[in-house]
Protein backbone atom coordinates (compact mmCIF):
# COMPACT_ATOMS: atom_id res chain seq x y z
CA UNK A 1 0.00 0.00 0.00
CA UNK A 2 3.03 2.19 0.42
CA UNK A 3 3.09 2.62 -3.34
CA UNK A 4 -0.06 4.73 -2.99
CA UNK A 5 2.04 7.19 -1.07
CA UNK A 6 4.45 8.03 -3.85
CA UNK A 7 5.63 11.42 -2.85
CA UNK A 8 5.95 13.54 -5.91
CA UNK A 9 9.14 15.38 -6.61
CA UNK A 10 8.59 19.05 -6.95
CA UNK A 11 9.67 20.89 -10.02
CA UNK A 12 10.62 24.39 -8.89
CA UNK A 13 10.41 25.85 -12.38
CA UNK A 14 6.77 24.78 -12.50
CA UNK A 15 4.39 27.01 -14.44
CA UNK A 16 0.63 26.66 -14.62
CA UNK A 17 0.75 27.62 -18.31
CA UNK A 18 2.35 24.27 -19.02
CA UNK A 19 -0.13 22.30 -16.91
CA UNK A 20 -3.40 23.64 -18.28
CA UNK A 21 -3.13 24.29 -22.00
CA UNK A 22 -5.79 26.20 -23.90
CA UNK A 23 -7.37 29.49 -24.93
CA UNK A 24 -10.93 28.58 -23.95
CA UNK A 25 -12.31 31.13 -21.44
CA UNK A 26 -12.82 28.36 -18.85
CA UNK A 27 -9.15 27.36 -19.05
CA UNK A 28 -7.93 30.96 -18.95
CA UNK A 29 -9.99 31.63 -15.81
CA UNK A 30 -8.94 28.33 -14.23
CA UNK A 31 -5.26 29.20 -14.66
CA UNK A 32 -5.84 32.49 -12.83
CA UNK A 33 -7.83 30.71 -10.12
CA UNK A 34 -5.13 28.07 -9.58
CA UNK A 35 -2.43 30.75 -9.34
CA UNK A 36 -4.45 32.58 -6.74
CA UNK A 37 -5.63 29.58 -4.69
CA UNK A 38 -2.07 28.26 -4.48
CA UNK A 39 -1.10 31.23 -2.31
CA UNK A 40 -3.64 30.23 0.33
CA UNK A 41 -4.16 27.17 2.54
CA UNK A 42 -7.84 26.88 1.57
CA UNK A 43 -9.29 23.40 1.05
CA UNK A 44 -10.00 22.77 -2.63
CA UNK A 45 -12.49 20.42 -4.28
CA UNK A 46 -11.70 19.59 -7.90
CA UNK A 47 -14.44 17.99 -10.00
CA UNK A 48 -14.34 16.89 -13.61
CA UNK A 49 -14.81 13.86 -15.83
CA UNK A 50 -12.11 11.24 -15.88
CA UNK A 51 -9.07 12.37 -17.87
CA UNK A 52 -9.67 16.12 -17.50
CA UNK A 53 -6.50 16.56 -15.43
CA UNK A 54 -7.64 16.68 -11.80
CA UNK A 55 -4.33 15.40 -10.45
CA UNK A 56 -2.39 17.78 -12.70
CA UNK A 57 -4.36 20.67 -11.22
CA UNK A 58 -3.87 19.43 -7.65
CA UNK A 59 -0.16 19.11 -8.25
CA UNK A 60 -0.06 22.55 -9.88
CA UNK A 61 -1.65 24.12 -6.81
CA UNK A 62 0.97 22.45 -4.62
CA UNK A 63 3.88 23.33 -6.89
CA UNK A 64 2.86 27.00 -7.00
CA UNK A 65 2.23 27.22 -3.25
CA UNK A 66 4.61 28.18 -0.43
CA UNK A 67 4.47 24.47 0.48
CA UNK A 68 6.23 23.45 -2.72
CA UNK A 69 9.41 22.25 -0.99
CA UNK A 70 7.38 19.92 1.25
CA UNK A 71 5.74 16.62 0.15
CA UNK A 72 2.77 16.25 -2.21
CA UNK A 73 1.02 13.02 -1.21
CA UNK A 74 -1.64 11.67 -3.60
CA UNK A 75 -4.11 9.13 -2.19
CA UNK A 76 -6.59 7.31 -4.41
CA UNK A 77 -9.51 6.58 -2.09
CA UNK A 78 -10.98 4.12 -4.61
CA UNK A 79 -7.78 2.08 -4.95
CA UNK A 80 -7.32 1.34 -1.23
CA UNK A 81 -9.66 -1.25 0.37
CA UNK A 82 -12.19 0.49 2.62
CA UNK A 83 -11.10 -1.28 5.80
CA UNK A 84 -7.47 -0.23 5.27
CA UNK A 85 -8.10 3.35 4.23
CA UNK A 86 -8.31 4.78 7.76
CA UNK A 87 -4.98 3.32 8.90
CA UNK A 88 -3.39 4.34 5.59
CA UNK A 89 -4.57 7.91 6.05
CA UNK A 90 -4.07 8.37 9.77
CA UNK A 91 -1.56 5.61 10.65
CA UNK A 92 -1.94 3.01 13.37
CA UNK A 93 -0.41 1.85 16.66
CA UNK A 94 1.09 -1.56 17.22
CA UNK A 95 -1.67 -4.10 17.90
CA UNK A 96 -4.47 -1.85 16.66
CA UNK A 97 -5.75 -4.71 14.50
CA UNK A 98 -4.61 -8.17 13.33
CA UNK A 99 -1.38 -7.75 11.42
CA UNK A 100 -0.55 -4.31 12.85
CA UNK A 101 2.85 -5.40 14.06
CA UNK A 102 4.36 -1.97 14.57
CA UNK A 103 3.49 1.70 14.75
CA UNK A 104 2.90 3.15 11.35
CA UNK A 105 2.84 6.70 10.15
CA UNK A 106 -0.20 7.68 8.07
CA UNK A 107 -0.28 9.57 4.80
CA UNK A 108 -1.53 12.70 6.57
CA UNK A 109 1.64 12.78 8.69
CA UNK A 110 3.77 12.19 5.61
CA UNK A 111 2.13 15.24 4.06
CA UNK A 112 2.93 17.40 7.09
CA UNK A 113 3.90 20.87 5.91
CA UNK A 114 2.85 19.90 2.37
CA UNK A 115 -0.31 18.85 0.56
CA UNK A 116 -2.42 15.70 0.69
CA UNK A 117 -4.47 14.98 -2.44
CA UNK A 118 -7.54 12.82 -1.80
CA UNK A 119 -8.58 11.58 -5.22
CA UNK A 120 -12.01 9.94 -5.76
CA UNK A 121 -13.18 11.25 -2.41
CA UNK A 122 -16.72 10.10 -3.23
CA UNK A 123 -15.53 6.51 -2.63
CA UNK A 124 -14.62 7.21 0.99
CA UNK A 125 -16.76 5.22 3.50
CA UNK A 126 -19.19 7.33 5.55
CA UNK A 127 -17.53 6.50 8.89
CA UNK A 128 -14.19 7.75 7.61
CA UNK A 129 -15.83 10.87 6.16
CA UNK A 130 -16.80 11.84 9.72
CA UNK A 131 -13.19 11.44 10.86
CA UNK A 132 -11.86 13.43 7.90
CA UNK A 133 -14.28 16.23 8.72
CA UNK A 134 -12.88 16.38 12.24
CA UNK A 135 -9.33 16.54 10.93
CA UNK A 136 -10.31 19.40 8.62
CA UNK A 137 -11.85 21.27 11.57
CA UNK A 138 -9.07 20.89 14.16
CA UNK A 139 -6.05 19.54 12.26
CA UNK A 140 -5.68 16.71 14.78
CA UNK A 141 -4.85 13.18 13.56
CA UNK A 142 -5.77 10.13 15.64
CA UNK A 143 -3.96 6.96 14.52
CA UNK A 144 -6.04 3.74 14.63
CA UNK A 145 -5.71 2.13 18.06
CA UNK A 146 -4.34 5.26 19.69
CA UNK A 147 -6.13 7.35 22.29
CA UNK A 148 -3.90 10.35 21.68
CA UNK A 149 -4.11 12.68 18.73
CA UNK A 150 -1.49 15.00 17.35
CA UNK A 151 -1.48 18.11 15.26
CA UNK A 152 -0.71 17.85 11.53
CA UNK A 153 -0.40 20.73 9.11
CA UNK A 154 -1.36 19.34 5.70
CA UNK A 155 -3.25 21.23 3.04
CA UNK A 156 -6.15 19.16 1.72
CA UNK A 157 -7.10 19.00 -1.94
CA UNK A 158 -9.90 16.58 -2.84
CA UNK A 159 -11.16 15.44 -6.22
CA UNK A 160 -14.14 13.59 -7.56
CA UNK A 161 -15.27 12.61 -11.03
CA UNK A 162 -18.82 11.92 -10.02
CA UNK A 163 -21.37 14.41 -8.91
CA UNK A 164 -20.76 14.76 -5.18
CA UNK A 165 -23.85 16.93 -4.82
CA UNK A 166 -25.92 13.97 -6.06
CA UNK A 167 -24.11 11.66 -3.59
CA UNK A 168 -25.07 14.09 -0.80
CA UNK A 169 -28.72 13.87 -1.87
CA UNK A 170 -28.49 10.08 -1.98
CA UNK A 171 -26.99 10.05 1.49
CA UNK A 172 -23.70 8.39 0.52
CA UNK A 173 -21.66 11.54 1.11
CA UNK A 174 -21.86 13.79 4.17
CA UNK A 175 -23.31 17.19 3.46
CA UNK A 176 -21.16 18.95 6.09
CA UNK A 177 -17.98 17.45 4.61
CA UNK A 178 -19.10 18.43 1.11
CA UNK A 179 -19.43 22.09 2.14
CA UNK A 180 -16.21 21.96 4.18
CA UNK A 181 -14.27 20.67 1.13
CA UNK A 182 -15.88 23.10 -1.26
CA UNK A 183 -14.20 26.20 0.15
CA UNK A 184 -12.81 26.61 -3.35
CA UNK A 185 -14.63 24.58 -6.03
CA UNK A 186 -12.62 23.97 -9.18
CA UNK A 187 -14.61 22.50 -12.07
CA UNK A 188 -12.63 21.16 -15.03
CA UNK A 189 -14.33 21.21 -18.44
CA UNK A 190 -14.61 18.09 -20.61
CA UNK A 191 -12.50 18.29 -23.76
CA UNK A 192 -15.58 18.29 -26.04
CA UNK A 193 -16.72 21.45 -24.21
CA UNK A 194 -13.58 23.24 -25.41
CA UNK A 195 -13.02 21.57 -28.75
CA UNK A 196 -11.23 24.63 -30.15
CA UNK A 197 -8.29 23.87 -27.81
CA UNK A 198 -7.66 20.46 -29.39
CA UNK A 199 -5.16 21.64 -32.08
CA UNK A 200 -3.17 23.51 -29.42
CA UNK A 201 -3.07 20.43 -27.18
CA UNK A 202 -2.03 18.15 -30.05
CA UNK A 203 0.77 20.57 -30.95
CA UNK A 204 1.86 20.65 -27.28
CA UNK A 205 2.06 16.84 -27.05
CA UNK A 206 3.92 16.67 -30.38
CA UNK A 207 6.39 19.29 -29.19
CA UNK A 208 7.08 17.21 -26.09
CA UNK A 209 7.71 14.13 -28.24
CA UNK A 210 10.00 16.14 -30.55
CA UNK A 211 12.00 17.44 -27.59
CA UNK A 212 12.29 13.96 -26.10
CA UNK A 213 13.09 11.98 -29.25
CA UNK A 214 14.77 14.51 -31.53
CA UNK A 215 12.32 13.53 -34.28
CA UNK A 216 10.86 16.19 -36.57
CA UNK A 217 7.33 14.89 -36.18
CA UNK A 218 4.32 16.78 -37.54
CA UNK A 219 0.66 16.03 -38.20
CA UNK A 220 -1.16 16.59 -41.48
CA UNK A 221 -3.96 19.14 -41.59
CA UNK A 222 -6.57 16.49 -42.39
CA UNK A 223 -5.50 14.20 -39.55
CA UNK A 224 -5.71 17.20 -37.20
CA UNK A 225 -9.26 17.92 -38.45
CA UNK A 226 -10.28 14.35 -37.51
CA UNK A 227 -8.78 14.69 -34.03
CA UNK A 228 -10.63 18.00 -33.69
CA UNK A 229 -13.96 16.48 -34.78
CA UNK A 230 -13.86 13.54 -32.36
CA UNK A 231 -15.69 13.67 -29.02
CA UNK A 232 -12.90 12.36 -26.72
CA UNK A 233 -14.93 10.70 -23.95
CA UNK A 234 -11.62 10.06 -22.11
CA UNK A 235 -10.77 13.76 -22.41
CA UNK A 236 -7.22 15.20 -22.46
CA UNK A 237 -5.68 11.97 -21.19
CA UNK A 238 -7.21 10.02 -24.08
CA UNK A 239 -5.99 12.63 -26.57
CA UNK A 240 -2.50 12.55 -25.05
CA UNK A 241 -2.36 8.74 -25.23
CA UNK A 242 -3.59 8.86 -28.82
CA UNK A 243 -0.89 11.33 -29.90
CA UNK A 244 1.78 9.21 -28.16
CA UNK A 245 0.45 6.09 -29.88
CA UNK A 246 0.33 7.78 -33.29
CA UNK A 247 3.91 8.98 -32.84
CA UNK A 248 5.13 5.46 -32.05
CA UNK A 249 3.27 3.97 -35.02
CA UNK A 250 4.35 6.70 -37.43
CA UNK A 251 7.37 5.63 -39.50
CA UNK A 252 7.94 8.88 -41.35
CA UNK A 253 7.82 12.48 -40.19
CA UNK A 254 4.12 13.18 -40.70
CA UNK A 255 1.12 11.63 -38.95
CA UNK A 256 -1.47 11.25 -41.68
CA UNK A 257 -5.18 10.38 -41.72
CA UNK A 258 -4.32 6.82 -42.81
CA UNK A 259 -2.64 6.29 -39.41
CA UNK A 260 -5.79 7.12 -37.43
CA UNK A 261 -8.00 4.38 -35.99
CA UNK A 262 -11.23 3.99 -38.04
CA UNK A 263 -13.56 5.17 -35.25
CA UNK A 264 -11.71 8.48 -35.24
CA UNK A 265 -12.10 9.04 -38.96
CA UNK A 266 -15.75 8.16 -39.54
CA UNK A 267 -17.29 6.90 -36.32
CA UNK A 268 -16.68 10.01 -34.25
CA UNK A 269 -19.82 11.69 -35.45
CA UNK A 270 -22.01 8.73 -34.66
CA UNK A 271 -20.47 7.80 -31.33
CA UNK A 272 -23.31 9.39 -29.40
CA UNK A 273 -25.81 6.73 -30.35
CA UNK A 274 -24.71 3.44 -28.88
CA UNK A 275 -26.54 0.13 -28.88
CA UNK A 276 -25.46 -1.90 -25.83
CA UNK A 277 -24.44 -5.56 -26.18
CA UNK A 278 -26.01 -6.42 -22.85
CA UNK A 279 -29.06 -5.04 -21.13
CA UNK A 280 -27.69 -2.76 -18.37
CA UNK A 281 -28.61 -3.30 -14.70
CA UNK A 282 -31.11 -0.48 -14.62
CA UNK A 283 -32.82 -1.74 -17.78
CA UNK A 284 -33.25 0.29 -20.96
CA UNK A 285 -35.91 1.91 -23.06
CA UNK A 286 -36.34 -0.16 -26.22
CA UNK A 287 -38.48 2.44 -27.97
CA UNK A 288 -35.88 5.16 -27.48
CA UNK A 289 -33.06 2.91 -28.63
CA UNK A 290 -34.93 1.73 -31.71
CA UNK A 291 -35.75 5.35 -32.58
CA UNK A 292 -32.10 6.29 -32.17
CA UNK A 293 -30.99 3.43 -34.38
CA UNK A 294 -33.59 4.41 -37.00
CA UNK A 295 -32.45 8.01 -36.84
CA UNK A 296 -28.85 6.99 -37.28
CA UNK A 297 -29.55 4.84 -40.35
CA UNK A 298 -31.87 7.45 -41.87
CA UNK A 299 -29.13 9.99 -41.31
CA UNK A 300 -26.59 7.76 -43.02
CA UNK A 301 -28.93 7.07 -45.95
CA UNK A 302 -29.50 10.80 -46.44
CA UNK A 303 -25.76 11.41 -46.37
CA UNK A 304 -25.15 8.75 -48.99
CA UNK A 305 -27.82 10.12 -51.30
CA UNK A 306 -26.82 13.75 -50.88
CA UNK A 307 -30.08 14.56 -49.12
CA UNK A 308 -32.36 12.97 -51.72
CA UNK A 309 -35.21 11.60 -49.63
CA UNK A 310 -36.74 9.38 -52.28
CA UNK A 311 -33.40 7.68 -52.96
CA UNK A 312 -32.74 7.41 -49.20
CA UNK A 313 -36.13 5.74 -48.70
CA UNK A 314 -35.31 3.25 -51.46
CA UNK A 315 -31.94 2.55 -49.86
CA UNK A 316 -33.68 1.59 -46.63
CA UNK A 317 -36.44 -0.41 -48.32
CA UNK A 318 -39.12 2.01 -47.13
CA UNK A 319 -42.07 3.65 -48.85
CA UNK A 320 -41.57 7.39 -49.32
CA UNK A 321 -44.43 8.23 -46.94
CA UNK A 322 -43.14 5.85 -44.24
CA UNK A 323 -39.70 7.37 -44.61
CA UNK A 324 -41.10 10.91 -44.26
CA UNK A 325 -42.98 9.90 -41.10
CA UNK A 326 -39.87 8.32 -39.59
CA UNK A 327 -37.82 11.37 -40.54
CA UNK A 328 -40.16 13.55 -38.51
CA UNK A 329 -40.34 11.17 -35.57
CA UNK A 330 -36.58 10.58 -35.30
CA UNK A 331 -35.77 14.25 -35.41
CA UNK A 332 -33.41 14.46 -38.35
CA UNK A 333 -32.60 17.93 -39.62
CA UNK A 334 -32.10 17.20 -43.30
CA UNK A 335 -30.15 19.33 -45.78
CA UNK A 336 -32.33 21.56 -47.90
CA UNK A 337 -32.94 20.24 -51.39
CA UNK A 338 -34.00 22.93 -53.87
CA UNK A 339 -34.12 25.44 -51.06
CA UNK A 340 -36.58 23.42 -48.99
CA UNK A 341 -35.67 22.16 -45.56
CA UNK A 342 -37.25 19.33 -43.66
CA UNK A 343 -37.14 19.01 -39.91
Amino acid sequence: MASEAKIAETDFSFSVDRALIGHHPAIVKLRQLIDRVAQTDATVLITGESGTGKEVVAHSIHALSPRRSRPFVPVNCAAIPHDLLESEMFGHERGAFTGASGNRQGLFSMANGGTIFLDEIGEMPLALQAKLLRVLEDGVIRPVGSDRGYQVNARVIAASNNDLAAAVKKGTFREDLFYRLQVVPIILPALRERRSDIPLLVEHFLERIRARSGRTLTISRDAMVHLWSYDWPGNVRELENMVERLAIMCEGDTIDTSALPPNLVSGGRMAEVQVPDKIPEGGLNLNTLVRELEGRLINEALKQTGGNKQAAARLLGLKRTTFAAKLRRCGVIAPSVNGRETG
Partner: protein
Amino acid sequence: MPKPNRAAQIMVVDDDPDTVTILSRYLAREGFVPVEAGSGQDCLKALQASRVDLILLDLMMPEMDGFQVVRALKNNPDTAEIPVIMITARDDIDARAEGMRLGVSDFLAKPVLRKQLVNRIHAQLEGLATARAAEDALGRFGPETHKK
Protein backbone atom coordinates in the same frame (compact mmCIF):
# COMPACT_ATOMS: atom_id res chain seq x y z
CA MET B 1 -21.99 21.35 -13.51
CA PRO B 2 -23.38 24.72 -12.58
CA LYS B 3 -26.54 25.59 -14.50
CA PRO B 4 -27.18 29.13 -15.64
CA ASN B 5 -30.24 30.57 -13.94
CA ARG B 6 -31.89 31.66 -17.18
CA ALA B 7 -32.63 30.03 -20.53
CA ALA B 8 -29.73 30.32 -22.98
CA GLN B 9 -30.25 32.62 -25.97
CA ILE B 10 -29.22 30.96 -29.20
CA MET B 11 -28.93 32.84 -32.48
CA VAL B 12 -29.80 30.96 -35.67
CA VAL B 13 -28.11 32.44 -38.74
CA ASP B 14 -29.26 31.05 -42.09
CA ASP B 15 -30.36 32.62 -45.37
CA ASP B 16 -33.04 29.95 -45.79
CA PRO B 17 -36.12 31.15 -43.84
CA ASP B 18 -37.49 27.59 -43.57
CA THR B 19 -34.35 26.41 -41.82
CA VAL B 20 -34.44 29.36 -39.44
CA THR B 21 -38.07 28.60 -38.58
CA ILE B 22 -37.50 24.89 -38.09
CA LEU B 23 -34.41 25.34 -35.95
CA SER B 24 -35.98 28.13 -33.88
CA ARG B 25 -39.09 26.10 -33.21
CA TYR B 26 -36.98 23.15 -32.16
CA LEU B 27 -34.70 25.21 -29.92
CA ALA B 28 -37.73 26.76 -28.20
CA ARG B 29 -39.13 23.30 -27.55
CA GLU B 30 -35.81 22.36 -25.92
CA GLY B 31 -36.07 25.31 -23.55
CA PHE B 32 -33.72 27.73 -25.31
CA VAL B 33 -34.57 31.25 -26.43
CA PRO B 34 -34.04 31.42 -30.21
CA VAL B 35 -32.90 34.65 -31.86
CA GLU B 36 -33.29 34.71 -35.65
CA ALA B 37 -30.96 36.23 -38.23
CA GLY B 38 -31.41 35.89 -42.02
CA SER B 39 -27.85 36.76 -43.01
CA GLY B 40 -24.33 37.28 -41.70
CA GLN B 41 -24.86 41.04 -41.72
CA ASP B 42 -28.06 40.65 -39.69
CA CYS B 43 -26.18 38.52 -37.17
CA LEU B 44 -23.37 41.05 -36.68
CA LYS B 45 -25.80 43.96 -36.51
CA ALA B 46 -28.01 42.25 -33.92
CA LEU B 47 -24.97 41.50 -31.76
CA GLN B 48 -24.12 45.19 -31.53
CA ALA B 49 -27.34 45.71 -29.64
CA SER B 50 -27.60 42.56 -27.54
CA ARG B 51 -25.63 39.49 -26.54
CA VAL B 52 -26.45 35.83 -27.14
CA ASP B 53 -24.95 32.72 -25.50
CA LEU B 54 -24.28 30.73 -28.65
CA ILE B 55 -24.55 31.03 -32.44
CA LEU B 56 -25.71 28.34 -34.88
CA LEU B 57 -24.21 29.50 -38.15
CA ASP B 58 -24.88 28.33 -41.69
CA LEU B 59 -21.81 28.17 -43.91
CA MET B 60 -23.13 28.81 -47.40
CA MET B 61 -24.88 32.17 -47.52
CA PRO B 62 -24.86 34.79 -50.29
CA GLU B 63 -22.81 38.02 -49.86
CA MET B 64 -21.23 37.12 -46.52
CA ASP B 65 -20.52 33.41 -45.95
CA GLY B 66 -20.22 31.69 -42.58
CA PHE B 67 -16.42 31.90 -42.51
CA GLN B 68 -16.53 35.67 -43.03
CA VAL B 69 -19.00 35.93 -40.17
CA VAL B 70 -16.72 33.89 -37.87
CA ARG B 71 -13.75 36.08 -38.77
CA ALA B 72 -15.72 39.22 -37.91
CA LEU B 73 -16.94 37.68 -34.62
CA LYS B 74 -13.45 36.57 -33.57
CA ASN B 75 -11.93 39.96 -34.44
CA ASN B 76 -14.29 41.76 -32.10
CA PRO B 77 -13.38 41.33 -28.40
CA ASP B 78 -17.08 41.74 -27.49
CA THR B 79 -18.10 38.70 -29.54
CA ALA B 80 -14.87 36.65 -29.72
CA GLU B 81 -15.85 34.35 -26.87
CA ILE B 82 -19.36 33.45 -28.08
CA PRO B 83 -19.24 29.78 -29.11
CA VAL B 84 -20.08 29.26 -32.79
CA ILE B 85 -21.43 25.94 -34.05
CA MET B 86 -21.29 25.74 -37.84
CA ILE B 87 -24.10 23.71 -39.32
CA THR B 88 -23.85 23.10 -43.01
CA ALA B 89 -24.73 20.83 -45.90
CA ARG B 90 -21.14 21.16 -47.12
CA ASP B 91 -19.19 18.45 -45.32
CA ASP B 92 -15.76 18.32 -46.86
CA ILE B 93 -12.47 18.25 -45.07
CA ASP B 94 -11.47 21.70 -46.41
CA ALA B 95 -14.54 23.32 -44.89
CA ARG B 96 -13.92 21.58 -41.57
CA ALA B 97 -10.25 22.58 -41.62
CA GLU B 98 -11.16 26.21 -42.24
CA GLY B 99 -13.69 26.11 -39.38
CA MET B 100 -11.07 24.61 -37.07
CA ARG B 101 -8.48 27.21 -38.14
CA LEU B 102 -10.88 30.07 -37.46
CA GLY B 103 -11.66 28.73 -33.99
CA VAL B 104 -15.28 27.62 -34.34
CA SER B 105 -16.46 25.58 -31.38
CA ASP B 106 -18.04 22.78 -33.36
CA PHE B 107 -18.92 21.78 -36.91
CA LEU B 108 -22.01 19.78 -37.81
CA ALA B 109 -22.86 18.46 -41.25
CA LYS B 110 -26.48 18.04 -42.28
CA PRO B 111 -28.32 15.80 -41.97
CA VAL B 112 -28.04 16.31 -38.22
CA LEU B 113 -29.92 14.36 -35.59
CA ARG B 114 -31.76 16.90 -33.48
CA LYS B 115 -30.66 15.07 -30.35
CA GLN B 116 -27.07 15.35 -31.54
CA LEU B 117 -27.49 19.08 -32.13
CA VAL B 118 -28.85 19.54 -28.61
CA ASN B 119 -25.96 17.53 -27.12
CA ARG B 120 -23.47 19.72 -28.96
CA ILE B 121 -25.22 22.91 -27.81
CA HIS B 122 -25.25 21.69 -24.20
CA ALA B 123 -21.53 20.83 -24.36
CA GLN B 124 -20.66 24.40 -25.37
CA LEU B 125 -22.99 25.91 -22.76
CA GLU B 126 -21.39 23.71 -20.07
CA GLY B 127 -17.99 25.06 -21.10
CA LEU B 128 -19.31 28.59 -20.59
CA ALA B 129 -20.84 27.65 -17.23
CA THR B 130 -17.47 26.27 -16.14
CA ALA B 131 -15.80 29.55 -17.06
CA ARG B 132 -18.42 31.42 -15.03
CA ALA B 133 -17.90 29.13 -12.03
CA ALA B 134 -14.14 29.75 -12.15
CA GLU B 135 -14.72 33.48 -12.38
CA ASP B 136 -17.07 33.38 -9.37
CA ALA B 137 -14.52 31.42 -7.32
CA LEU B 138 -11.81 33.87 -8.37
CA GLY B 139 -14.05 36.72 -7.26
CA ARG B 140 -13.99 35.43 -3.72
CA PHE B 141 -10.22 35.91 -3.54
CA GLY B 142 -10.20 39.64 -3.97
CA PRO B 143 -12.04 42.43 -5.75
CA GLU B 144 -9.19 43.26 -8.12
CA THR B 145 -9.84 40.16 -10.25
CA HIS B 146 -13.59 40.21 -9.93
CA LYS B 147 -15.11 42.09 -12.81
CA LYS B 148 -18.82 41.29 -12.42
